[in-house]
């Protein structure tokens, strides 16, 4: 049913449709509205779940770890510092191959304190072993959340659904909220084969010595790699039931033949699409690669999507100081095995919530026309604002 809903409210509704047994979350801007909406659903009797109002994100992650290990469908949400506080637990959840779902309302990481959107938080936990999916709209966030529960269950891996803080979480837009009956058809009840059960007791979280650790890591990596087709499969299955997909591992938007491409994750993709609509006459059209799966990283799909591209702008919403953009660096790495791969321009922008206008499309494409264009820059930084020695 189509409704005008705030993003956070829509996510809460989606969670409710997935019937989690346990929800634990600690409020943090801009995730707060999700927690509030869930609390309200519980208070009104519209959601029957054990809602654990924890005292920190660290405990939120720990609670869902324990709950899922005990055989419950579990969900949490956080952002920014909260994700960093959770990070230790996140490694644990994935290391024990515990399936659960988390929404990350992406936000910058301090200091300085900054509550606005970028993707530094999710990038800080890129090696935590979670499946990380990015959404460009609240509709995608809703759909991906529902898919994430099935994905987690089938892969026995935790799934983080990323949605840009404020830009999506606080934006009201028209959402087609799936019907409960259809969600029930799509999403089987939660089952966890290794769950803690007195009838069949196992010990989880054992000590593994060096003789076995490489194999453990290999199996985790292999599970992530095997999740690539699973992500596509589950998205397709979703489309079958609900009539729309969320973009599998990645999709190519805009001019699919263009020799110039822009690759990005999250809501900025939409702005680039709008920018292309507005400015294609001026700077030409581009392939716009909407990357949905960041972990596992779809190397082959990326190379396929970028065949024939000469110049590629990778938009990063986070940086790794001293190296450059995170996504850009990773894209460059996977393109290194490609014959005649594109020249990669890695531009970070919109850090800490700086507004990205549709005209950015034009600005980016113009910038790379210059043969001396830098391969990495924080594109929207005005260096004049800095003392010379800090430029």
């Amino acid at each position, binding site marked *: *049913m*189509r*409704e*005008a*809903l*705030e993003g956070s409210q829509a996510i809460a509704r989606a969670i409710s449709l997935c019937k989690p047994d346990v929800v634990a979350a600690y409020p943090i801007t*801009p995730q707060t509205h999700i927690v509030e909406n869930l609390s309200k659903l519980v208070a009104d009797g519209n959601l029957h779940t054990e809602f654990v109002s924890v005292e920190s994100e660290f405990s939120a992650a720990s609670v869902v770890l324990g709950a899922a290990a005990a055989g419950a469908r579990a969900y949490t949400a956080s952002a920014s510092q909260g994700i960093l506080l959770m990070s230790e637990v996140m490694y644990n959840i994935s290391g024990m191959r515990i399936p659960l779902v988390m929404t990350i309302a992406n936000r910058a990481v301090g200091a300085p304190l900054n*509550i*606005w959107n970028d993707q530094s938080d999710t990038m800080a936990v890129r090696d935590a072993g979670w499946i990380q999916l990015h959404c*460009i*709209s609240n509709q995608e966030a809703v759909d991906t959340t529902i898919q994430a529960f099935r994905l987690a269950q089938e892969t026995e891996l935790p799934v983080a659904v990323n949605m*840009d803080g*404020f*830009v*999506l979480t*606080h*934006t*009201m*837009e*028209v959402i087609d909220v799936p019907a409960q009956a259809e969600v029930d058809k799509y999403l089987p009840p939660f089952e966890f084969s290794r769950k803690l059960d007195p009838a069949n007791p196992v010990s989880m979280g054992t000590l593994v010595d060096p003789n076995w650790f490489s194999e453990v890591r290999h199996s985790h990596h292999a599970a992530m790699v095997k999740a690539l087709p699973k992500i596509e499969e589950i998205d397709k299955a979703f489309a079958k039931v609900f009539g729309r997909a969320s973009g599998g591992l990645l999709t190519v938007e805009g001019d699919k033949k263009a020799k110039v491409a822009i690759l990005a994750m999250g*809501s*900025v*993709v*939409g*702005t680039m*699409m*709008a*920018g292309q609509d507005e400015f294609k006459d001026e700077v030409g059209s581009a392939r716009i690669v909407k990357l949905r799966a960041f972990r596992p990283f779809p190397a082959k799909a990326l190379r396929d999507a970028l065949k024939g591209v000469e110049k590629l702008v990778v938009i990063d919403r986070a940086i790794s100081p001293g190296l450059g953009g995170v996504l850009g660096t990773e894209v460059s790495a996977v393109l290194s095995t490609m014959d005649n791969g594109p020249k990669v321009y890695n531009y970070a922008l919109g850090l800490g*919530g700086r*507004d*990205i*206008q*549709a005209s950015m499309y034009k600005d980016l494409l113009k910038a790379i026309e210059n043969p001396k264009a830098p391969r990495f820059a924080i594109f929207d930084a005005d260096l004049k604002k800095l003392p010379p020695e800090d430029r």
Partner: protein
Amino acid sequence: MATGEAVVQIAPNPAIALKRGAEALAGAEEPEEPIMIEYRIHGRGGQGSVAAAYLLAAAAFEAGFTCQAFPAFGAERRGAPVMAFVRIDEKPITLRSQVRSPDFMIVQDDTLLLDPNLTAGLNPEGAMLVNSRKPASEFKKSKTRVIAFPATELAVEVIGRPIPNTALLAAFLALTEHVPQKALAAALKGRFAGPVLEKNLELIAKAADTVEKGAWKEKAHA
């Protein structure tokens, strides 16, 4: 909660004509791509500016449009200047940037206009509705149309609280006819209930009556 059913079916929509031009209304053979309308609402924390944006978007949704509404996020507290943005269109809206050049502005507190930059980017063919007892001329700095309307007084009179947002929205929609009043009422029903809803419905009816209906229906001729 919104009902999900478009309460009014209006096609072609007069509001869209704003940007399409008069031809569309006349039923031209090749109507242009529908063009998005952008709004910016200014106010102070506590006046319900974000709520007004959500209401406007919800009303548009009730009228069958796609919509987008979001605040300019900040750590502002009660009393501080805030703004919120609304986009209305007939096709999905992918643009996520803040509205820098609104077609229309609603200003909930006339003191905000002491800042000359407040109206920066406002479409000269658009218009601005100001909540004020002062005459509109006080705020008219350019050719852009301005109407002043004492929404706070009306709100105090009808609902007993100095929250001007719904009165302003009603007056605004009466002026622009972008979305029918019935859609606004439906949006209010999705947000309020009981006496609050009743009072607000009374308020928007009165507010709509205080302005000249359809005055901003047409594009301004700069």
